[in-house]
């Protein structure tokens, strides 16, 4: 990207120009791809498909895949052009929600840096050349041929791989993704004898303990977990029953934000915590007595005992989960804990991923073979192993005689291979895959492959020498064999096959596998924790400007990664946010800026992977540093680290630097008990709602009167809503330089504040978009009537009328208005195809802000009028509401007693931000309620 030394305003332009250059060539192909015909001909909709009305969106179900785990989505397409992705309510891994990553996938489809054509060492080549390579790779049963795949659950690929095993026995197949499940499977193999995955029924659990496990964040089943957690946390009043969530982690995660109690521990302490918990249970006679030896002492003892008692008291309605970052030992212990508590909320089932838990998911053997020069042909199918390989294994692709990369993006691995074959985006894909729970989820393309890409299956089939068939034919032909129980077309329509999840298996814990208490290693001075980035994951999304500019849920950092460090440790080292430190793990040093984060465990550093890309992707290159360079297989994701403070500094583009509430009451929080019977708390909350003295008369608010209500108890700050808002409303990306000057354009921001004094720093998140005030301060200061009030209570912006005085922003107490300081919009290039045609693209010099997704409201009104029914607005959902994994957002009419918003208004913890300003906002909030353990206060 750009350096801070560049004059303000230049980088946004240069980035856009880059996009233009890269995109122009592809634009034609892209548009052609929109028609339902081959890319060669661009034809008008003279004879358009019957199901398609120009101007009216059509919706199809398909699945997006990450490390072999499918998430069901519904894709909105306009004239065959995918523009928006929504969750699929019928899909168990989505339940109607998505993460930010899925929201941004639509932009990735139109990424101008996708691989465009088959190349041989950079020069264009034909498919014939590839077939020759594959033919050679078939020779002598595939000796010397290695295939490196991403972990996959594709049934089609499964068949092909089985045939490869049979006909090409000498070939080696390896699966690789840095954050794919390994430790849990290994741990469970230890105690159950076979590699199994834990399945959580969190909607049944009363007490949940997350040991460094980001249940609602980076877990493959996070969306379902988030919903299930939240469904047990919807507080109506003080008498409501809530589950209790303990988060024990090193760095803050969305799960930590949701938690009722959060404890900061070093990564290495997690194992001790697990042991000590088990010891408490053993002491209580729940587990073999010899395990009781490891009972906690010191500061941890108090809360561990309390948690143990809480768990035992829950009578089997408990769930204890360890994160994938933790070593196998911890997962084994956790399995023991769950067994000891005889919980009904945790079951075990085989993984949906092919060969999950087998050696084939380790990179080691391939790395060695390459180093020894034993590889004649290397087929890399997807992924980016050159970038994600552990630092101590390194993948010497150049040692292979012939290397071929099939992938959608021109990344590091593509650069390292001889042959590059354009891959497919999930939205161009035909396949049958499985969700994390095994549910069979078909993939169907929304659009013709933009760049004549090929799927993994197609490559494998070609390797096997099959005669070419279209992707659809392959899947349709295989379906009866693969899924005899269900109809192909019903499955496509629904996006998932009912009841096709992997059944749980009966298991018993081998207690003997749990070593009572090995000598704990002396703790290092500092520990480093490596995590997958909440948006970039393992770096595969690093070329997506939407995700790069999406503020981190906790640090609010954009366009960068930085080592998170606790205030105390920062003070001890004498560093501030932005100061660059050199982190050294096992002799490998990396210089990174630091960022001070309350709630981070002391003496630890947390660094996100996925940055520091060096491929040819223009946006990703040079953003942040690659944490993989500190990742070694023997040390894993948490390692002792040496720290050297440098005298250099990098200003970080943070959208909210401020953590404190400043004694203001914009985000009230209370415990469930206080909400029940603490008159002070109740009256404080009551003071933030209700009528206020005013001289103004009231305009008649008849008919549908839109309003929103956001439940902060279930908001994890995951930021999917922010991304959904950007995707729905065409908000532009402005780049690091502009973010540094507080010019980000997101209509919705997630304010996060530390709501408590203690060092564990309880954080609550408050989504903040236009509040659609009835007495809107922005309106009466606009000199040209560019922002006015609609009859149905919307605060409307008339972009064409705006002259850009910005008076409205000055007078907005919530500062939710965004201004087009430059011509931020992209004028040409492939990515304009991702825009929502129902929303105006704003011009330079005009103000913009949240509209309550007015285009959806008006569309619903039109539909109602066409259908001849009275409009009640029950079917209107805003983009942020629709995507929210925990359904924290309610939207509807205040004049309708049946809507959730009206009901929320009656709750004791309903409040309006800055109520005393008399703006009468239409967006209300439900205060953050924590279900504290009485023992811990």
């Amino acid at each position, binding site marked *: 990207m750009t350096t801070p030394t560049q004059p303000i305003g230049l980088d946004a332009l240069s980035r856009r120009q880059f996009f233009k250059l890269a995109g122009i060539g592809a634009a034609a192909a892209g548009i052609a791809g929109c028609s339902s015909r081959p890319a060669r001909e661009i034809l008008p909709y003279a004879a358009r498909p019957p199901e398609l009305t120009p101007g009216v969106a059509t919706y199809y179900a398909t699945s997006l895949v990450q490390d072999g785990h499918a998430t069901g989505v519904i894709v909105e397409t306009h004239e065959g052009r995918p523009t928006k992705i929504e969750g699929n309510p019928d899909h168990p891994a989505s339940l109607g929600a998505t993460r930010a990553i899925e929201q941004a996938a639509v932009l990735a489809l139109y990424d101008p840096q996708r691989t465009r054509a088959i190349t041989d060492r950079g020069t264009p080549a034909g498919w014939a050349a590839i077939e020759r390579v594959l033919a050679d790779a078939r020779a002598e049963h595939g000796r010397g041929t290695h295939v490196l795949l991403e972990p996959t659950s594709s049934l089609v690929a499964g068949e092909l791989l089985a045939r490869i095993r049979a006909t090409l026995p000498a070939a080696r197949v390896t699966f690789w993704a840095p954050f794919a499940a390994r430790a849990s499977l290994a741990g469970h193999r230890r105690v159950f004898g076979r590699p199994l995955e834990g399945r959580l029924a969190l909607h049944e659990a009363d007490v949940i303990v997350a040991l460094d496990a980001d249940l609602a964040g980076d877990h493959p089943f996070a969306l379902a977990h988030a919903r299930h957690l939240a469904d047990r946390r919807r507080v109506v009043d003080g008498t409501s029953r809530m589950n209790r969530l303990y988060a024990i982690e090193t760095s803050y995660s969305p799960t930590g934000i949701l938690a009722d109690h959060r404890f900061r521990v070093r990564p290495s302490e997690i194992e001790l915590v697990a042991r000590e918990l088990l010891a408490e249970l053993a002491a209580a006679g729940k587990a073999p007595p010899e395990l009781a030896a490891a009972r906690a002492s010191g500061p941890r003892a108090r809360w561990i005992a309390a948690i143990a008692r809480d768990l035992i008291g829950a009578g089997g309605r408990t769930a204890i989960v360890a994160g994938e970052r933790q070593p196998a030992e911890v997962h084994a212990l956790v399995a023991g804990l769950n067994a000891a508590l005889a919980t009904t909320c945790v079951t075990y089932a085989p993984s949906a991923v092919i060969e999950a838990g087998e050696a084939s998911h380790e990179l080691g053997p391939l790395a060695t073979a390459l180093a020894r020069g034993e590889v004649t042909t290397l087929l890399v199918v997807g992924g980016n192993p050159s970038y994600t390989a552990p630092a101590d294994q390194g993948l010497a692709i150049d040692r292979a005689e012939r290397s071929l990369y099939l992938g959608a993006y021109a990344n590091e691995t593509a650069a390292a291979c001889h042959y590059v074959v354009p891959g497919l985006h999930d939205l161009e894909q035909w396949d049958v895959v499985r969700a994390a729970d095994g549910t069979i989820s078909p993939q169907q393309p929304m659009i013709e492959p933009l760049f004549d890409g090929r799927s993994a299956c197609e490559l494998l089939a070609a390797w096997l020498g099959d005669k070419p068939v279209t992707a659809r034919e392959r899947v349709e032909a295989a379906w009866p064999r693969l899924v005899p129980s269900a109809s192909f077309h019903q499955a496509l329509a629904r996006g998932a096959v009912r009841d096709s999840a992997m059944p749980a298996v009966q298991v018993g814990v081998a207690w003997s596998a749990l070593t009572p208490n090995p000598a704990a290693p002396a703790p290092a001075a500092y520990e480093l924790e490596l995590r997958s980035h909440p948006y970039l994951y393992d770096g595969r999304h690093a070329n997506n400007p939407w995700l790069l500019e999406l503020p981190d849920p906790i640090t609010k950092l954009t366009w960068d990664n930085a080592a998170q460090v606790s205030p105390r440790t920062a003070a001890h080292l004498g560093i501030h946010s932005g100061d660059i430190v050199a982190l050294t793990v096992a002799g490998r040093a990396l210089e990174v800026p630091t960022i001070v984060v309350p709630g981070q465990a002391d003496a630890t550093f947390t660094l996100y992977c996925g940055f520091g890309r060096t491929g040819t992707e223009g946006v990703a290159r040079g953003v942040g540093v690659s944490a993989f360079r500190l990742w070694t297989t023997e040390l894993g994701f948490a390692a002792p680290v040496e720290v050297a403070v440098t005298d250099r500094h990098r200003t970080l583009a943070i959208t909210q630097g401020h953590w404190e509430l400043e004694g203001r009451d914009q985000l009230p929080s209370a415990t469930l008990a206080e909400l029940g019977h603490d008159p002070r708390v109740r009256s404080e909350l009551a003071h933030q709602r209700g009528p206020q003295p005013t001289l*103004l008369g009231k305009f008649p608010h008849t008919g549908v009167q839109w309003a929103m209500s956001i439940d902060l108890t279930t908001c994890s700050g995951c930021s999917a809503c922010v991304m959904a808002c950007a995707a729905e409303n065409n908000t532009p990306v402005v780049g690091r330089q502009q973010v540094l000057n507080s010019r980000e354009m997101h209509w919705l921001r997630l304010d996060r504040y530390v709501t408590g004094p203690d060092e564990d720093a309880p954080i609550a998140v408050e989504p903040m978009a236009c509040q659609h005030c009835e007495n809107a301060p922005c*309106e009466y200061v606009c000199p040209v009537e560019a922002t*006015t*009030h609609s009859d149905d209570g919307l605060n409307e912006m008339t972009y064409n009328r705006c002259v850009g005085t910005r008076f409205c922003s000055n007078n907005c107490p919530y500062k939710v208005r965004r201004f087009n300081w430059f011509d931020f919009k992209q004028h040409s290039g492939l990515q304009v195809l991702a825009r929502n045609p129902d929303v105006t693209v704003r011009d330079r010099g005009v103000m913009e802000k949240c509209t309550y997704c007015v285009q959806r409201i008006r569309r619903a009104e039109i539909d109602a009028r066409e259908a001849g029914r009275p409009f009640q607005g029950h079917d209107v959902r805003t983009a942020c509401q629709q995507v929210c994994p925990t359904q924290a957002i309610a939207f509807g009419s205040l004049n309708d007693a049946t809507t959730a918003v009206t009901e929320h208004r009656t709750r004791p913890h309903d409040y309006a931000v800055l109520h005393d300003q008399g703006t009468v906002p239409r967006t209300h909030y439900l205060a953050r309620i924590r279900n504290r353990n009485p023992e811990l206060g």
Partner: protein
Amino acid sequence: MKDKIALAAELGTGEELKRCIETLRGLGMSRFETFTPYEVEGLEELLGVRRSWLSWIVLAAALVGGGGAYLLEWWINVVAYPLDIGGRPLHSAPAFLPIMFEMAVLFGSAAALISALVLGGLPTLWHPMFEVEGFRSVTDDGFWLAIHASDAALDRATATAALETAGARRVVWLGASP
């Protein structure tokens, strides 16, 4: 003022000018006109010029400007575009006042300038007096007295004599009317 000037005389000070007028009055002449580098105290009274009624024009203009402005504001917000602006009443009287005031000021001032010029007979780039030898001093230190040809009592010899004795620097005869 319309009719022709017959005789013009330049005097050194305002006081001399006033004295001359009185002497000439004594000789029965009445149709004078004076030109001075700056306003001379008491000259108007002497010539019997009433106070300018220009102020009434200004008042009228100010009322039109202010009233018109308020009316327009009312019409825009109550009739033409009755919009809900931040829940404020359509007829937000206090908010309409500033512009009303400014428009009153603007119209009043414009009226003042324009009528001052028009009533003062401006612009007229040519005037018979400009033909008079030495009249330039009217903006320097010359106090000029002119007698209209239409003045029945005007007699060149007596007037000239009277003026010269009164210390006129220059007396110019422009010719009487037939």
